């Protein structure tokens, strides 16, 4: 079987389109979930820093900025976990099927 044949088979396999669509959409959504809060945070620090200086609790010294920044870091990491869970499971299973079916 030639390389072109395999490529054509993969291309015409509806599972390929399904996998690429799902994975691309998933990656874009997760990127937005990281970038939108991050740039919102950056713009607040630039334009309305007082918002992050609000105290976390009555009489406490901690301001809301600290836990928010920490959540951006921890949340970013957790999202990488969410991505690889699905990419290494569901998407890779689909990928294996596509490759196997193409080699038949």
């Amino acid at each position, binding site marked *: 079987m030639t*390389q072109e044949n*395999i*490529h054509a088979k*993969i*291309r015409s396999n509806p599972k*390929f389109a399904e*996998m*690429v669509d799902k*994975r691309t959409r998933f*990656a*874009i959504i*997760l*990127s937005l979930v*990281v*970038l939108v809060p*991050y*740039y919102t*945070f*950056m*713009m*607040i*620090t*630039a*334009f309305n*820093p*007082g918002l*992050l*200086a609000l105290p976390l609790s009555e009489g*406490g*010294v*901690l*301001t809301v*900025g*600290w836990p928010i*920044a*920490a959540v*951006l*870091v*921890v949340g*970013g*990491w957790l*999202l*990488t*976990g969410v*991505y*690889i869970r699905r*990419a*290494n499971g569901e998407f*890779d299973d689909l*990928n294996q099927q*596509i*490759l196997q079916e*193409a080699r038949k």
Partner: protein
Amino acid sequence: MKRSLLALSAGLLVAGLAIAAPGAIEGVQKQPINVSAIAMFMVFVLATLGITKWAAGRTKSTADFYTAGGGITGFQNGLAIAGDYMSAATLLGLTSLVYAKGFDGFIYTVSFFIGWPIILFLLAERLRNLGKFTFADIASYRLDQSRIRTFAAFGSLTVVCFYLIVQMVGAGQLIQLLFGLEYNMAVVCVGILMMVYVTFGGMVATTWVQIIKACLLLGGGTVLMLLAFSQFGFSFDNLFSQAIAAHKSGIKIMAPGSLMADPVSAVSLSFALLFGTAGLPHIMMRFFTVPNAKEARKSVFYATGFIGFFFLVVIILGIAAIVIVGQNPAFFEGGQVGGKLIGGGNMPVMHLAKAVGGDIFLGFLSAVAFATILAVVSGLALAGASAIAHDLYARVIKKGEATSAQEMKVTKIASVGIGLTAIALGILFKDQNIAFLVALTFGVAASVNFPVLVLSMYWKGLTTRGALLGGIAGLVSAVGLVILSPAVWVKVLGNAQAIFPYDHPAIISMTLAFVVTWLGSITDKSSRAAKEAAAYEEQYIRAQTGLGAAGAHAH
């Protein structure tokens, strides 16, 4: 003041970067020889040389040399990536920024971190599926082999070269400060050890040096954090109220301050960090060391976790240092609290180590800092050597006809050459204000390497002409704007006012590179352009499925 702080902190904090800021240079004076630090560093050197000897036995082919035969696991590679990213500067620079500025330091920390999830979502698996040894493999996948590969190789070498200067100068200063060794001797030591690791042990040795160092840094940082935090009864309220009481800015350290007041600077800096990181050749190369896309994704997951954890530890260290170091006259020149810190502005974390762990712990942390620099320069040298031997020699000059033995020989010569160059540049740039080199490194990475990388993977319409024109536009504008920026125009050339007001050119130069690449490609009606578009199909399927991607080599 605001801008110089931005330059200073950007200079200090950027990944894999040693001390490069003017404040550090002024503060450097040779310290008495630190015996425990040197002894612990010698243990590290002996252990890593042992690993290099073992690795040399396993490094037979070019694949072994460049990518450890693709046999590194996701977890190991995650540690190594984290090691590449957590430099001596992250530890010293970030803590000193939090120590000086409080919450503003945290804002920077978040910016240095945030690129990693994005690299995973958009780049990691495609990098692994398309690349073999170098980033130029991907850039030239379906474009003109000679021209694009040459251009990509020079892009890599430029970044490697600038970054090596920063590292070598930082190494010299840091070692002078912590170990009491002469600057030149420190630079020569780093250069020689780097050559030994890379030349004999290749990627296997470089990876393990990086892993060991990452563990030492994570372990050392965590222990230091626990020791320091225990003095506050592990209570954040306690820690922060004492820090507010001790800091000269008082309650202001709890909120965003002046550093972020200029949104354009902030965005340009975040662009440089976000996309520049993805364009660093030694970071990209790490993705080729794992067997498949699955492990590549796992590496980023682990790396992101380690980096995020370490950054949060660093924040606590900085705050604790405000209380423990900032009020102790023993750490200030002439015993004047609030005056100049002994050893310069980057020393809070080192003083903190001494305050809570004594001389032995200080020695340990100094040794870790030295090991860190060594590991980062080794990764850079390997990336540079692969660009010379694999891209320029084997692919462009020999047109793929070189034997594996010939290529290996050239790689080793190139590694030695890069080592000698690094030593020479390190000595040449001694006492120079090199903060601009950081902006240059990340500016070129974000404006030259990153656009061609991402467009070759994502855009069918990219042609050789577009890539070359865009790359040149990115290179010229990044270098030009850095020269016109405050870091060079004012601080190096001594003019009163910078022509380009921002230290990081990425917001302009990267945008320009993308636009010119796009224009150059869509107006390209040559038959080659048509062929290149047709070849996208095969590349796309491989990028998505890993079909035909280089696998792991069994040993």
